[in-house]
């Protein structure tokens, strides 16, 4: 029973992280229907920005957190402006391969500047955020993650619900042509959604970096884990991404714990194929997928 509870807690925390990482991915897909293979690299870049501000520039933690977020925001706008905008209306494979090329470029740059070693942030989280109650042990970082993640979810919920930019973004996601004819600046919405997605990705990168240390291979690998998560949750549902993440996280830890550790990494993809065959729009996605 102890083992079960440990796995449950571990799976929930890992899953929440997956969900958080998948949020930015969903945001890009929702507004511009781009499947972003460079998502893992965006996550890594956020973590490395934070690392650079904290350890190289020696800026206070909170300030460098905000600076790193701003850097990711700008990077998102730049990516959309330079690389994605010329491809509006081009066939799918070009868009997909462009993000694959971007992923290789970013990874090469990160490896060039920082190398493939593991870095850690200085320890700064207060112990009070953790839970240490008999067998249930949650380190402070997970507590902080939960708080940051929930905060971001609420903020974005409010943003999409009430702000005019958020409403524009929803309208573009809903029907691009109608939004265009009603005077929504669709290109600006694309840029904004890339910027916000890069920001969210960078934020999850920082959180992952606090938990596991900063290593470009691990962080960009998360970008591939995102696929089962978003397919399970529905490609265009932000809440679905969180729930899909938690389900995939639980699934991983339970197969790792009870069946075999080596099966752990491949189980999400087996589930992915099954969902695609049985319920391609996922748990919370729009049932708009075009069947053949």
């Amino acid at each position, binding site marked *: 029973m102890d083992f079960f509870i440990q796995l449950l807690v571990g799976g929930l925390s890992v899953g929440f992280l997956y969900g958080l990482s998948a949020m930015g991915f969903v945001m890009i897909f929702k507004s511009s229907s781009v499947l972003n293979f460079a998502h893992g690299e965006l996550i890594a870049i956020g973590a490395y920005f934070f690392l650079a501000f904290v350890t190289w520039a020696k800026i206070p933690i909170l300030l460098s957190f905000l600076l790193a977020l701003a850097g990711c925001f700008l990077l998102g706008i730049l990516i959309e402006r330079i690389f994605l905008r010329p491809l509006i209306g*081009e066939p799918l*494979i*070009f868009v997909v391969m462009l993000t*694959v090329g971007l992923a*290789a470029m970013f990874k090469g740059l990160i490896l060039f500047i920082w190398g493939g070693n593991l870095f850690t942030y200085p320890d700064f989280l207060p112990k009070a955020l953790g839970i240490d109650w008999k067998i249930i042990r949650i380190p402070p970082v997970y507590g902080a993650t939960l708080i940051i993640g929930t905060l971001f979810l609420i903020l974005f919920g409010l943003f999409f619900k009430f702000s005019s930019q958020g409403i524009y973004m929803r309208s573009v996601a809903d029907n691009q042509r109608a939004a265009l004819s009603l005077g929504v600046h669709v290109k600006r919405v694309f840029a904004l959604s890339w910027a916000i997605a890069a920001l969210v990705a960078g934020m999850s990168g920082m959180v992952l970096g606090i938990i596991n240390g900063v290593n470009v291979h691990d962080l960009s690998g998360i970008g591939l884990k995102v696929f089962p998560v978003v397919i399970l949750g529905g490609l265009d549902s932000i809440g679905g991404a969180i729930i899909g993440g938690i389900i995939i996280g639980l699934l991983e830890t339970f197969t790792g714990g009870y069946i075999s550790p080596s099966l752990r990494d491949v189980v999400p993809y*087996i589930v992915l*194929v099954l969902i*695609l065959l049985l319920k391609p729009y996922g748990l919370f996605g729009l049932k708009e997928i075009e*069947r*053949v």
Partner: protein
Amino acid sequence: MHPCGNFRERYQQELSVFTTDFGRIWTGIGILLLITLVPLSASPYMLYIFNMIGITAIAVIGLNILIGFTGQISLGHGAFFGVGAYAGAIFSTALHLPMLLCIPAAGLTTALVGMIFGIPSGRLKGLYLTIATLAGQFIIEYVLIHWESLTKGTMGITLPPASLLGLSLRGDLGFYYLIFISLAGMVWIAVNLIRTRYGRAFIAIRDNDRAAEGMGIPIFRYKLLSFGISSFYAGFAGALWAFYMGSITAEPFNLGLSVEYIAMVIIGGLGSISGSIFGAVFITLLNEALRFMTGLLMNSDLFSTSELNIAPLREFVFGLAIVLFILLEPRGLAELWRIIRSNFRLWPFSY
């Protein structure tokens, strides 16, 4: 000489592979040079590069049939290449089949595996199919490493020395001939496949699957067939590679290889057989050139003393090449080649 414009009068002219005798003669001369001059003059390293290009070109032609002609994006081609390599190795070590039988058998096995992983294409298209093949890539990779009784896990398999019809096939030169005869055969099959009803059905599905269905093409069957043919090419190339290398492990058949193959298809030119070969040549040479450059830079004073790590720049340049081609010439090297040719042909009145 061509006039500008399309003045064909019969369907045979529309279907012709070479439009002029000029192209026919130069293709013949090119093949002759590849058979005679290259093996006699090339160093072993050059031969190795030629062989790698040949093997890669076979696999890329297969992928181009799937992506460029049928319009189904697959991210699992590297894994299919691996399935072919393992199938060839297992046929050769466990069943002691001769190599001449092993390679096509490996191709057929891979075609079967490819068709199984092509089943999702019956219900899915576009992005969803791409994600399904991505999952296929990871599942195959897992099976290759963990089905230990068959694949010997991380130990890998060592193949017996290659021999063809009793003749021992040692070194790069023997393989050079084998690979290029295979490549020529595979190109011939692919070029003609596109001109048959099957190839035309593939193109119809790519251009508009609903219209194709409406015109009576059973699209699921044709999509499966396309997956099968494409995986056959990958498996054939993989088995050749396994025999050429002499021993295999599951490590090289990762997502990176799949991505590299798609990059070749795009850089070479979607929906162009000659483009696939251009793409294979370009990326293989780019890889070798970058390896050479990084080796040179690492030994130079500037970088060996500083902390910067120069090796990852290879990945950066690879990504940059993909991005630049997509942004600047999305139809790839084949289109560039066509523009250059028509420039010469229409000179001085090119437009």
